[in-house]
C-alpha cells in the first residue's frame, strides 16, 4: 500500500519525478501504464486508419496496380497530375464543383443567419421552440430518403410538375433530374431545405448570450425591431459568423458527396460531375487508383490552402478565427 501511494504521489507531482531523472521518469511511466495503454490504443487506431492512408497518398506519384504493394510500385513522377490538367473532363468538373459550392455559399450561408434572426424575434417562447424542433428534423434524415422523395417529386409525373402545370408556369412536364440545366438549383435548394434549421442552432445559441441590457439601451435610444436586429443582434454574433465562414470557404471544393451521389445520373452528368464524384468514378469504378489519388490530393491541398487563407484574412480583419 505504501509503494502504491508513493507511485501515486510521483505521478501527481511531476516536479519530484523530474528531480529523479531517468529512474523517476520510468517510475512515472510505470505508474501510468494503464493510462498509456488506453491512450496508445487510440494512437494505434489513428496510425492505421488516418496515417496509413496519408502515406498511401504517395501512389499519386507512382504507377500503382493491385498486384504490387504501395512500396514496390514504380515511380511515375508528376504524370498523373499532368494527365489531370489535360483531362477533357477537367473544365466541367471544376465548373460544377465551384459553381455548386459558390451558390451554396452565396445563398445557403446567409439564409440560416436570417432564419435565426427572425426566429429570435418571435414573441412566444413555445412557438419558437416548436418551429425550431420542426426545422431541424430534416438534418437527421439521410440523403437516401430525401433523394427518394426528390426523385419521385421531380419526375415528369411528379408533384412539382403537377403544381407548376396547374399554376400555368410551365406548358409541358419536365423531367427535372434528367435535365442538366436544373441540377445545381435542385442540389442547392434541397441542401438548404435539409440544413436550414440545423445551421441556425449555433447562431441562436450565440444570440442567447447577447446581453439584454444592450437591447434595453437600444430601445431607450429609440431603435426599432430592424435596427435592433441590425445593430445589436448581428454584431453580437459576428464572431460565430466569422468562424463558420472560414469553414464554409475551406469547404469550397467539398461538394456534398452524399447528396450528389444520390441525385446524379447519366443524364445530368454534365452538371453533376464534381471532383468527389470524378474521383469515385475514376478510382473505384475504373480502378485507376493512382490517377484518382492524384486528383484527390490536388483537392486536399487546395482545401488546406483555402482554410489557412480564409483564417489568415479574417485574422488580419480582427475577426474571430479558428487558430
Amino acid at each position, binding site marked *: 500500500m505504501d509503494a502504491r*501511494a508513493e507511485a501515486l504521489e510521483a*505521478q501527481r507531482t511531476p516536479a519530484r519525478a523530474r528531480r529523479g531523472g531517468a529512474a523517476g521518469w520510468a517510475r512515472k*511511466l510505470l505508474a*501510468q501504464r*494503464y493510462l*498509456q495503454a*488506453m*491512450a496508445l*490504443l*487510440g*494512437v494505434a*487506431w*489513428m496510425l492505421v*486508419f*488516418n*496515417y*496509413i*492512408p496519408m*502515406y*498511401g497518398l504517395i*501512389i499519386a506519384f507512382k504507377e500503382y496496380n493491385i498486384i504490387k504493394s*504501395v512500396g514496390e510500385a514504380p515511380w511515375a513522377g508528376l504524370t498523373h497530375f499532368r494527365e489531370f490538367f489535360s483531362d477533357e473532363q477537367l473544365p466541367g468538373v471544376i465548373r460544377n464543383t465551384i459553381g455548386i459550392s459558390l451558390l451554396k455559399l452565396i445563398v445557403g450561408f446567409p439564409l440560416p443567419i436570417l*432564419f435565426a434572426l*427572425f426566429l429570435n424575434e*418571435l414573441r412566444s417562447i413555445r*412557438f419558437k421552440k416548436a*418551429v425550431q424542433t*420542426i426545422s*431541424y*428534423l*430534416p438534418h*437527421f434524415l*439521410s*440523403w*437516401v*430518403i*430525401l*433523394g*427518394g*422523395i426528390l*426523385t419521385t417529386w421531380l419526375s415528369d409525373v411528379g*408533384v412539382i410538375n*403537377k403544381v407548376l402545370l396547374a399554376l400555368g408556369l410551365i406548358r409541358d412536364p419536365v423531367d427535372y433530374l434528367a435535365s442538366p440545366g436544373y441540377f445545381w438549383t435542385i442540389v442547392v435548394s434541397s441542401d438548404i*431545405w435539409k440544413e436550414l*434549421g440545423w445551421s441556425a*442552432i*449555433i447562431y441562436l445559441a450565440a444570440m442567447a448570450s447577447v446581453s439584454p441590457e444592450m437591447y434595453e439601451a437600444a430601445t431607450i435610444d429609440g431603435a*426599432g*425591431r430592424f435596427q435592433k436586429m441590425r445593430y445589436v443582434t448581428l454584431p453580437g454574433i459576428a464572431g460565430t459568423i466569422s468562424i463558420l465562414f472560414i469553414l464554409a470557404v475551406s469547404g469550397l471544393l467539398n461538394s456534398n*458527396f*452524399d447528396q450528389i451521389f*444520390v*441525385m446524379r445520373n447519366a443524364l445530368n452528368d454534365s452538371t453533376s460531375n464534381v471532383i468527389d464524384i470524378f474521383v469515385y468514378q475514376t478510382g*473505384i469504378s475504373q480502378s485507376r487508383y493512382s490517377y*484518382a*489519388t492524384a486528383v*484527390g*490530393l490536388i483537392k*486536399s491541398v487546395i482545401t*488546406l490552402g483555402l482554410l489557412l487563407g480564409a483564417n489568415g484574412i479574417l485574422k488580419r480583419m480582427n475577426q474571430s478565427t479558428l487558430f
Partner: protein
Amino acid sequence: MFALKRRTRGEAVFDGVNVLLMLVICFVTIYPVWYVLVNSLNSGQDAMRGGIYWLPRVFTLDNYAAVVDNPGIVTAMGITVAKTLAGTVLHVFFTAMVAYAFSRRELIGRNLYMILGTVTMIFNGGLIPTFLLIRDLQLLDNFFVYIIPAMFSFFDLIIFVSFFRELPQGLEEAAKIDGANDLVLFLRVVIPVSLPVVATIALFHGVWQWNDYFAGVIYITQNTELQPIQTFLYRVVAQNDTSQMVTAAAGGITKSVTSNSVKMATMVVTTLPIVLAYPFLQRYFVKGLMIGSIKG
C-alpha cells in the same frame, strides 16, 4: 403617444408576418415527410392515378406487409440494426476511453498524441488510399467494415476531453486511494458520472450509423446480404433498381402493391427510428454542440 401607438402597430404587422413566415417554413419542412407517410398507407395501384397529397384515398397496410414479406429488406434492416448497435457501443466506449487518457495532464507524450490527432482533423488520405487500406485489411465484404473504421473520432474525443476536464478531481483521488487502476477508474467512476456526454455522442453516432449508405456501396462489393437498408434504398432510388421491390410485390399478399408504394413504406420504416429517437436527440444535441464549441 401617437408615435408610440404607430410603432406598436408596426410591431404587430412585423410579428404577424414573422409568424406567417415561420408557419410556411414549418409546412415546407414537414410536408415531404407527410407525403411519404400518406402514400405508404395508400394502395399502390390507386396511387398511380395520382392526387394523394393530404390523406390516403384507399387506405391499406399492404405496403407494410410487403416490406415485412421481402427477405431482402428484412435482412438489410437487420444489418442496419446490428451495425448501429454494435458500432455505437464500440465507438462511444473506445473514443471515451482514449479521451479519458488524453484528458489527464500527467499523461507522458500527451502533446504529441494531441498533435497527431489534430492533424487528422485538417488533412486526410482521401477516398482511394482509404479504400486500398480497407481492402488490404480484408475488410471488403466484411460486417466489421461498418464498425472498426468508425470506432474512433478525434472530433468526438475533443468533446469527451472537455467534459472530463470539468469532473471534480476528488472523485478520482478517492478511487485511487482504494487502489483502483486507471482502467477500472474509467469504467467504474468516470463513465457513470459522464452519462450526458456519453448519451450525446451515442445518439449522434447512432444516427450517423443508421443513415450511412456509402460504406455499403463502396465496401460491400459481392455479398449483398451484408448491405444495410440505406444502401438497399440507395440502389432503388439512385440506380432505379426496383427489381428487388417488384419481386416483393409479386410474391406479396395482394396486387394493390407497386414497387413505388413499397418504396414509400420502406422509407417510412427506415425513418421511424430516427423520428422516435428525435426527442432524445433534441434534449442532448444543443448541450453537445455547446460542449464541442468550448474547445472545438
